[in-house]
């Protein structure tokens, strides 16, 4: 029996290592360019560790059982009549319960942090319309743009709505996503941490041109931002 447990653990470790390699050798997430996405990425790794452990346990037990107790087709004996084990059943009810509640609590904390606006964020109004995005900067008069330009390290609050059907605003590197819904206003916060050019993508099926409903997002320094504002206002 002890030998069996060693073998089972060995299979589990091999599977665990293989799955971990898959998780770390590929870059599964886009490079984070916002504070919000940094927090989401931490959460992602928490869920990933959890998943690797659970998958390895289940897969190892299945592989081990089949390897150890497989019988030829013409075998007509029965296995031992084990009907259950209350202790085990309590364990595999309680342990997952603790794990998922832990994940739930951490998620709720991240969600709350990602939703807390600073004193004076940059206000950007986002308008979704088949099949283009429009950005309005209320802080700077009637400044409107088809390209999203943001100063780095300054929190931006997007207030969204849609003209016709539901659209969804997503910049993969920001990690934040929010539907723009006709008739109501929705909001989301992004604090860019990295300058560069990113893509704004519509992720809610919105009709014929859905795949092409994209815009450019540019994160620049505060100085460049002020310059852009001035040029736009001129």
């Amino acid at each position: 029996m002890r030998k069996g447990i060693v073998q089972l653990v060995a299979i589990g470790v091999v599977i665990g290592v293989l799955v971990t390699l898959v998780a770390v050798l590929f870059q599964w997430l886009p490079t984070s360019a916002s504070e919000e996405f940094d927090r989401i990425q931490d959460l992602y790794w928490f869920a990933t560790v959890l998943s690797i452990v659970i998958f390895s346990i289940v897969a190892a037990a299945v592989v081990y059982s089949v390897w150890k107790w497989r019988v030829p087709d013409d075998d007509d004996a029965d296995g031992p009549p084990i009907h259950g084990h209350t202790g085990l059943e309590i364990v595999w009810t309680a342990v997952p319960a603790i794990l998922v509640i832990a994940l739930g609590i951490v998620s709720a904390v991240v969600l709350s942090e990602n939703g807390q606006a600073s004193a004076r964020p940059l206000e950007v109004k986002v308008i979704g319309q088949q099949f283009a995005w429009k950005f309005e900067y209320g802080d700077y008069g009637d400044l409107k743009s088809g390209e999203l330009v943001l100063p780095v390290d300054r929190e931006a609050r997007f207030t969204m709505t849609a003209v016709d059907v539901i659209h969804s605003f997503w910049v993969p590197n920001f990690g934040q996503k929010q539907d723009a819904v006709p008739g109501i206003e929705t909001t989301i916060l992004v604090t860019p941490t990295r300058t560069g050019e990113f893509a704004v993508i519509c992720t809610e099926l919105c009709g014929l041109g859905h795949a092409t409903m994209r815009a450019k997002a540019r994160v620049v320094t505060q100085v460049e931002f002020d310059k852009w504002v001035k040029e736009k206002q001129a």
Partner: protein
Amino acid sequence: MTAAHHDTPNVEYPAHFEPPHGPTWKLFFGPGLVRGVWMAGLGFVLGMFLVLALRLWWGWEPYWITEVILVVGGMVAAPMGFLAGIGSFDYWLHYISGRPTRPEDHSGHGAHSWKDYFRVNTDHKVIGIQYLVTTFVFFTIGGLMAMFFRAELAQPGLQFVDSQSFNGLVSVHATLMIFLFIIPAFAGIANFVVPLMLGAPDMAFPRLNALSFWLLPIAGIMFISSFLAPGGAFGAGWTGYAPLAEGQPLGQTFFNMGVQWAGASSIMTALNFLVTIITMRAPGMTFWRMPLLVWANFTTSLLVVIATPFIAGSQFFVLFDRILHTSFFTPEGGGYVLGYQHIFWFYSHPAVYIMMLPGFGIVSEVISSMSRKPVFGYRLMALSLMGILVLGFSVWAHHMFIAGMADWLRVPMMITTLLIAIPTGIKVFSWVATLWRGRIHLNTPMLFALGFVTMFVIGGLSGIYLGSVPIDIAASDTYFIVAHIHYVLFGGSVFTIFAGIYFWFPKMTGRMYNERLGKWHFWLTFVSFNATFFPMHYIGLRGMPRRVSDYDAAFGDLNFAISIASFVLGASFIVFVYNMVTSWVRGPIAEANPWRAHSLEWQVSSPPPIFNFDEIPQVVGGPYEYGVPGARHAVLSPAKEAQEVHA
């Protein structure tokens, strides 16, 4: 009900029951497909004239409005005409009009030739097979659509279809797979197996059962024929979100109405299962002695009857917004856009369990009998189904974390969503514990069951990511979701359907399938399934949204590889079809109980006699007492056919 009838299935009736005319008269005016076709046409014409007459009466111009005429004539009156034509209502109409009915008429029972499968048949075993063959036809069509749009997605840019056709293909693919394959395929398996497992001669309401089946092809044909509508098939996704769906071309109506027929079919079947399971258990078959497949269908049926009316409502509201100019979901008229999603997901999240719980039942049967061990923790297995049933109604808004609904709703819905991992985890661990120290027969049904357990764990774990609101915000509406639902519904549901088909094939057909081809089918499916859907997690997280006909060139190579893998997945289905067809026609004759299983369906001949049991069985113990010396599930004298086989 009693053994006497089974000797004389073709009872002679007094002459006045026979139509007084010749065979041609009977062909056109007797119940059947021919009468179904002309009465469908008649129904359409009546519906059309009703609309025209009313509009003329009130002086509403224009008199001809295609969409309204299509809904009333084509999607309500014509299907009703078809159902009346094939004879679904004959008994009830005779009864209502005071004409003599034939309560002991079992001519609609059993199948004596292949033609009997194309008639209104009241035998649950015939209906089960009608369901399965029909659903696999729609599975094939839905699969071919997937091949088509995978070809389109093999390269960035548009090659084969324009984006409206692409949206149509994706939408109809999902709709067929959900409403015309997974849900009714489980209903088909349960139709065949559940009454047998209960020791019942049939379902509680055989005529209702027949009617539920015949609603299905109507829904399926409606979905597919939307491609013929001007403007193309419905293209707002299987979720049909308003207000997009309200501005779609005519094809959208086919979805709104098709869902009604499929939904009605599922509600009737579920009621039938509930009544059958509650009232038709053999003596001694207490709830705690029912096989888990019966438990699974009991909980599924509860989900169906409670939840399905919600999707019916959501589609009616969209339809009313389209043709009656109401404004349930249009903000200009005071409508509430998110209302659609709340109502839709209040059905469609429980629907995920409607598509999963029967599979849990199948897998419990397969793993237990192939490991030669009792199901580990039987009572907790049954209770966890009930747990999923209850929790399943409190998580719908996790589909709406980014939708803009009330912020406070997100955390409670996240917690309930994550809690569902507990009953689901209990099931997975119990299956693994059932394997433990068993005597494992690794045949095709068992391979699919184990493939299910491992793939479903992956689908469940990606569900944990999506349950966490912040991760969901990043991953929602991307290919990560596409990967997740295919791990749950393909690696989950479809694998269990295959396991169930192979497991009960000998019982249903009386013949054995080809084991070697079965294993080929499994391994080809398993490998190509993973090659197709696992990389989708990656491209989704990296930034590829779902439901797009064109995408960033950076994802080109991976999408090409995914498309190739998906073609192999499609091809693996040919192995299955070939195996099923050839084995059904000339496979070796199956024994009554090839798996040496204990539940009741295996104690009668393969295929079972017309009324299942010559004598009502007496249930004396649990259904999985493998390895317990002298233990029995039931005492019965085998049906006559079974005695002949064993003699």
